[in-house]
């Protein structure tokens, strides 16, 4: 009888263990292909911080019952060669359920095709090129608003407030992001009937813009419209002020970074930025994001917010479809509607581009403030 009792006890213990492990979580792997070295390293670093924080917070909150998110981060060195290698690793070796990234649009136009062909959903969180991203196929989705979604509205609103008629345009012509931004800005000036008194270009490695600015200012614009990444933006703003320009400066998404104020200092006052992320939004999702980043002692910028949102959207897709496979995530994307995110209430457009309210900000007292 004692032997039977012992066997029963061990069987009972074993079955408890088994049910315990049956209740173990499924892991949904998200591959993050980021530029951690090379020219785009500054953005990759922000994206990494946002992704890791989001994964951590979502896991802690337990909102995905029984599902744990795991982020696998790899560096593509800002080159398409390694971007492709990283994507192939994620698809075939790590067998991720979804990919976030890559950082650069140029890399995306090369690597996303692999994911499309293999049936792995990709969430673009910083690609803003109008063509060649989501139109690759139905597995490619985008959270980052294109410049075309942000700038025209912001510029129009600004004109309503300031009433300018003549504009000087300045843009970086050797970068896909800033070049695309310029195309949008130019089209916006035409739609709005603005007179473009001058157009100048610079290259990413440039630090001196005085020649271009002097030429533009000589044509007497009423506003300077600039498409630049933050490294150039802070220098452009500082030098414009130094040359005596007190008028308004309008920048695209690239300006939306605390580094603008950090590097340009008082020169940044009065700079308007059309942006996809309203830092001072009181929306609870944004406040939670800011709090999480502050706890990790990291000052976020737009890239950070967009990456966090990318993870949030994937998590939501998993929740909506109930499962964590590749096609489940894709099916989930189709159902995402008005998801609260740091960027605002987010949905996908029919063409898989992102959709949420963009914002117009102005730099005042060293901080971004919303322009109503």
């Amino acid at each position: 009888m004692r032997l039977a009792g012992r066997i029963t006890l061990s069987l009972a213990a074993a079955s408890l263990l088994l049910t315990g492990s049956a209740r173990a979580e499924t892991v949904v792997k998200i591959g993050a292909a980021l530029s951690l070295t090379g020219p785009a390293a500054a953005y990759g670093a922000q994206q990494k911080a946002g992704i890791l924080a989001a994964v951590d917070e979502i896991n802690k909150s337990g909102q995905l019952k029984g599902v744990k998110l795991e982020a696998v981060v790899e560096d593509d060195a800002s080159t398409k060669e390694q971007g492709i290698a990283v994507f192939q690793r994620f698809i075939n070796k790590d067998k991720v359920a979804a990919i976030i990234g890559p950082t650069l649009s140029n890399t995306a136009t090369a690597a996303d095709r692999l994911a499309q062909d293999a049936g792995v959903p990709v969430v673009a969180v910083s690609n803003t090129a109008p063509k060649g991203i989501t139109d690759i196929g139905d597995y490619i989705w985008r959270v980052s608003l294109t410049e075309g979604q942000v700038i025209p509205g912001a510029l129009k609103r600004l004109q309503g407030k300031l009433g300018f008629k003549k504009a000087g345009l300045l843009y970086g012509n050797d970068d896909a992001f800033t070049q695309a931004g310029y195309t949008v800005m130019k089209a916006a000036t035409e739609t709005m009937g603005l007179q473009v008194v001058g157009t100048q270009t610079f290259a990413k490695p440039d630090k001196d813009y005085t020649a271009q600015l002097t030429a533009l200012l000589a044509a007497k614009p009423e506003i300077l419209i600039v498409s630049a990444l933050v490294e150039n933006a802070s220098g452009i703003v500082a030098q414009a002020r130094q040359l005596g320009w007190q008028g308004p400066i309008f920048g695209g998404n690239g300006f939306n970074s605390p580094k603008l104020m950090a590097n340009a200092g008082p020169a940044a006052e009065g700079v308007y930025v059309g942006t996809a992320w309203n830092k001072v939004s009181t929306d609870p999702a944004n406040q939670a994001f800011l709090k999480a980043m502050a706890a990790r002692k990291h000052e976020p910028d737009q890239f950070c917010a967009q990456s966090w949102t990318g993870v949030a959207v994937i998590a939501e897709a998993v929740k909506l479809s109930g499962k964590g496979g590749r096609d489940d995530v894709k099916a989930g994307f189709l159902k995402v509607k008005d998801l609260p995110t740091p960027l605002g209430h987010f949905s996908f457009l029919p063409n898989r581009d992102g959709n949420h309210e963009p914002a117009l900000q102005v730099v005042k007292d060293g901080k971004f403030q919303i322009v109503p």
Partner: protein
Amino acid sequence: MWEQLSDFYLTYQSTFAYIGINALLAFSVYVSLSCGQLALGSAGFAAIGAYASALVTMKADLPFPVALAVGTLLPALVAVPLGLPVLRLKGIFLAIATIGFGEVVRLGLVNWEYVNGAQGIVAIPQKTSLWMIYLAVAVTLFVLWRLRGSKWGFALEAIREDEPAARTLGIPSTGYKLAMLVLGAALAGLAGALEAHFTFMVAPNGFGFSRVVDMLVYAVVGGAQGFWGPLAGAGFLTLLPELLRELAPLVGIEPGPLRMLVNGVVLLVVILFLPAGLMSLPRTLRERRAARRAAGAGGAAA
């Protein structure tokens, strides 16, 4: 088991492809180095080949072999009017002139609206297969091997060792140098065309100064003395980041700056201690062992 192999292949397929593409680019620098010319215009030639072939596919809608042919021949044609004046320059001046050429090509592409400037041409259908790349590499190796023991090979070596002396011996050095420049341009153009139809897109920022520096490094690290060198160098340096990617989590180090550091250290070690490149490693080790043995025998005898 089959699935594991297939996964392995798919994971590293692009790495293998790039080893081949980078080898072709390394060869393109190597052929000029073999006659003593530091011609660094290959990034520009690769850009011309890549864009020309992309335009043939996307705008003219012609079959892939035509695109490849255009991508190979157009840079070769450009190399002639470029080479005639430029090959008169010596050493570092030639290097700088050809670097300048590469930059002018890149800047031209950035400013050319027809090809979308910095955004480049996207959605190019993938027509390159691994076997095509390796066929090109094999053919190149064959050609170089045949050149080796031939009249051409001797002429090139003579020019490399001492050009004025070679000329007094009646070797038309300018002709040979130009031929090598044209061959190098063709190889670079072919590599560019193959790459364009492998990665679905081309953009100017893939053809800058750092790219041509990479090509030079592949050739030198592999060994610019023998014709296998560029392949060895390209192979090793293309694999290195992927190897480090595997190792990094095991050693607990972050990717990123580490990879850059290792690249630099490898290059420094090779150039200081293995000047004839990685290909000479077995020979150097053998020589060192022989020397040690001889010293030991001499010591014992004394």
